[in-house]
């Protein structure tokens, strides 16, 4: 699977002969090999022209744009390889059928809880006694079956995530504290890391969904149109524990990220450019990690698991085969 490239500096991204070239403000020129690029993530202030956009399009490369404060602000996606009216129709039908929508939403919640639990189980006994949270998550997982509608399921998910985030302060070394999860603005270092990491997971899900003919705006757990690509939010929930949270734990506990990597202004705590670089580097290495896939009988990257999730959903919608959400199995 192809790689993501992150651009943090300010400057100009351009087509130069048959490759991508970044000219930074301090006069440096860097090349990005286009043949093995999946997407470019633009974090800095970048100038570009339509010639670049056509070039990215021809090469099937997405550009994910992050605005000031590093909130995701949108994507320029390559023209679809495949459009499929049939796919969108079946996607909308499932949304419009309350029982079907509920079952899909329940699958996302079940998978999310399982993956949160896998992290808690990993750190249980290593750095803390987290048995109570494990039991709590099991109880919450059982209540998924009893939730009648999507609203209740959202509540179940929120309960689980709250219990899960409650373990962060035991897992993380002392200088770092989550307290409670707050966005907009993130008030402390851990919240800031979560926001940044989750935005990367979200953008990667956008790419994965667009590799199929699924419409990224038609979703099941989250309300469609709540935000631009709500299906990405559905999928991202499954993968946040695997990607964002594990990267965060590793970087903080190995002291690769320290409080020096943040700047706080008016109660808003944000990663510095160096901090963002450190995080995305570890994040990308994590996406490239592989695991033996029991059904495909080969190793697949974590990044490819996102693509497979989009395939699974599409297959469920068009072929009627059961959708089993991603659950960390290793």
């Amino acid at each position, binding site marked *: 699977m192809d790689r993501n490239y992150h651009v943090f500096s300010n400057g100009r991204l351009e087509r130069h002969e048959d490759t991508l070239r970044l000219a930074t403000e301090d006069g440096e020129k860097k090349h990005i090999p286009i043949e093995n690029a999946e997407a470019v993530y633009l974090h800095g202030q970048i100038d570009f022209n339509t010639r670049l956009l056509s070039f990215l399009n021809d090469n099937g490369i997405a550009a994910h744009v992050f605005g000031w404060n590093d909130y995701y602000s949108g994507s320029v996606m390559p023209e679809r*390889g*495949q459009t499929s009216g049939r796919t969108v129709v079946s996607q909308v039908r499932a949304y419009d059928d309350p029982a079907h929508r509920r079952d899909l939403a329940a699958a996302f919640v079940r998978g999310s809880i399982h993956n949160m639990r896998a992290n808690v189980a990993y750190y249980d006994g290593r750095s803390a006694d987290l048995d109570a949270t494990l039991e709590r998550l099991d109880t919450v997982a059982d209540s998924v079956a009893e939730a009648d509608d999507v609203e209740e399921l959202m509540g179940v998910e929120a309960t689980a995530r709250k219990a899960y985030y409650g373990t962060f302060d035991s897992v993380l070394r002392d200088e770092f504290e989550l307290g409670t999860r707050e966005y907009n603005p993130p008030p402390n270092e851990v919240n800031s890391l979560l926001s940044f990491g989750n935005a990367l997971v979200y953008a990667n899900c956008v790419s994965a969904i667009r590799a199929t003919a699924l419409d990224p705006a038609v979703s099941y757990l989250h309300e469609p149109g709540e935000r631009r690509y709500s299906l990405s939010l559905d999928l991202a929930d499954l993968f946040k524990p695997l990607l964002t949270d594990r990267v965060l734990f590793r970087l903080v506990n190995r002291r690769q990220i320290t409080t020096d990597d943040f700047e706080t202004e008016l109660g808003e705590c944000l990663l510095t450019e160096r901090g963002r670089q450190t995080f995305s580097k570890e994040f990308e290495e994590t996406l490239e990690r592989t695991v033996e896939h029991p059904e495909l009988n080969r190793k697949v990257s974590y990044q490819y698991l996102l693509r497979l999730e989009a*395939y699974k959903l*599409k*297959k469920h919608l068009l*072929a009627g085969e059961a959708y089993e959400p991603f659950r960390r199995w290793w």
Partner: protein
Amino acid sequence: MSESIDPVDRLLATARGDAAADPFRVTGVMMQYYHACERELWFASRQLEIDRENPAVVRGTRVDETAYGGRESKQLGMIAIDLLEDGRVVEVKPSSKLVEPARMQLAYYLWYLDRVAGVQRDGVLAHPRERERETVELTDDLAERVEDAIRGIHDLVTEESPPPAEEKPFCEACAYHDFCWC
């Protein structure tokens, strides 16, 4: 409405242009998929995922493009014939692994030419890699097998769901592999 009509008759009516309201088409590729993997045919009939980056797909496209340089396939109604050589229909396959499906695809072309265009031809199955060629002749027995397959294809593509996945020796190379098994 279509239930009562024999799919073979529907296909022939479609080829003649008499079935605008209720057409039924079978392409050569569908005939090939039917004999290789019914699940693959079902996916293909719904225009489901095909992995264009899959090495086998890339290779197959390349063999098609290079093996008989400059050749163009000839579209005739619902079939596309690879090559006419000395009056014979030639079907080119990148490998001899899937001989039977390729043979049935070729048999279908011969059947189609005979029944739709009234042209009798022999066929040649060519594997450029192996440099082997095999002649295929449309016997009554083979024609009957083609017609049975047309009925089987009709039943399969009108099913709501695909048949379950089944491990086959060529699964690894299939463009639907990951979609099928994930």
